């Protein structure tokens, strides 16, 4: 495995959720929705640990073709020849329940309005809103880059 990836310069990519391994494939490039903005990694990248926010993990080239996964919260390890992504939820944009996401958005806005001066509640509500917004954007193919 290591031999082939070295020759072709492909990253092995693994996306894991608490319940299963969603994908285990190879790609030329991987885009990650890091907390501090999208970042793209190629074969040979420096080792990196990053917390991921709500957004799309995009795989380009390799055995994956071009695949996108929506993740709500995640954590990624980038090594020169491998990217491993942990995500609480991972779904293809087509699998997103937009109605549910819209309902979540409303609930998030309601929680935000009711949070008072409690910082934790604000953070929770903000996270809820962000996840719902990104989910809707991803389902409609309008996610940020």
């Amino acid at each position: 495995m290591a031999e082939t990836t070295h020759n072709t310069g492909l990253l092995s990519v693994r996306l894991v959720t608490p319940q299963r391994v969603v994908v285990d494939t190879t790609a030329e490039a991987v885009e990650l929705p890091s907390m501090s903005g999208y970042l793209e990694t190629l074969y040979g990248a420096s080792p990196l640990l990053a917390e991921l926010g709500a957004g799309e993990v995009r795989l380009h080239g390799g055995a994956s073709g071009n695949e996108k996964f929506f993740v709500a919260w995640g954590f990624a390890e980038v090594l020169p020849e491998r990217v491993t992504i942990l995500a609480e939820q991972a779904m293809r944009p087509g699998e997103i329940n937009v109605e549910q996401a819209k309902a979540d958005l409303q609930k998030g806005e309601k929680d935000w309005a009711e949070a008072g001066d409690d910082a934790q509640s604000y953070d929770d509500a903000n996270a809820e809103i962000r996840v719902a917004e990104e989910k809707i954007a991803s389902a409609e193919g309008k996610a940020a880059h």
Partner: protein
Amino acid sequence: MPSVLDLRRRIRSVKNTRQITKAMKMVSAAKLRRAQEAALQARPYAQMITSVLESLQRRADIYDPTTGEAIHPLLVQREEKNVLVVVVAGDKGFAGAFNSNIVRAASNFIREREALGQNVDVEPVGRKARDAFRRLYPQAVYERKTEKYDNDLSEHHEIIRHRAHKVELTGEHELLLARLDFNTVHAMVHDIVARFERAEIDSVYVVFNEFKSVIAQRVVVEKLLPIAKLGAPEITAAEEMSLEQKEAAGHAARTAGVSTLEPEETAIEREAKKFGTADVDYIFDQSPARIFKHLMPKYIETQILHAMLESAAAEHAARMTAMDNATSNAGDMIDALSLTMNRARQAAITKELIEIVSGAAAL
């Protein structure tokens, strides 16, 4: 003595029962295989979270150098005055002693803690646990207090717990196991962590049926919070299977085609152990301390999910064993009844013969 007709009817009825129990056993075996598979699938994520946290623990300074105290709220050791116990049992019966074993272990725990003068909060998962504890203990009472200040421009919320009894129920989760959805686990853990952080509870335990394989199971009490050592759950009490139980479970598994071996470690799991621990200087997109802080609650989530997945598998295994027992009991009963029926039939024939013979002799 019952007539031949009665006995025949009874045999037919027991045969029907045997068919039902046999079908239930096979259904449980299929569900068990699925549950085992689910538990196996969940291992890499849990392993990765543990590995990266262990590695971060060494890098990030999570202990205050001056006081030596843990900085993360989930590592804080307090005197145990208020204890939460999460009891994971099944939603359905017909599973032998599965539910009662768990409820008994939990009751023992509650009694011990009460004797130590501690307050105990009980959070049952599964309908059977809920039913068992709802009759015994009252619900906890919470009050959400809102204060306005700055000329009513801002408000401050506070959740106040009114503890009136030594043992109270703080929530119920039924039918969580049948269709395990991670979002529900997430919400449950979020709530528990919040209670721990605001010091409403000082420690969290979970009582569940650990499941390594059909013949390697035990009911355990595991300490979840505060975290003493990552990746090494603290088992405070355990009840192993008896030899008879093992034999019964082994027989059920063999006849239903379920493996009694522990599943082997997969390549992905082996790699998962190295997650976030490579011997290189990582670039941290966020500070290690911050990543550590955000990952800690995820660790608790994986622990609770693990308990639920194993418990679900154990429940199916228990039902499979119970139904296997019932099937063989029905078989024994059919044999006994057939014997009685044959005897009754023979007696009737003999009686008729005697009547004929003695009738002929009288002539």
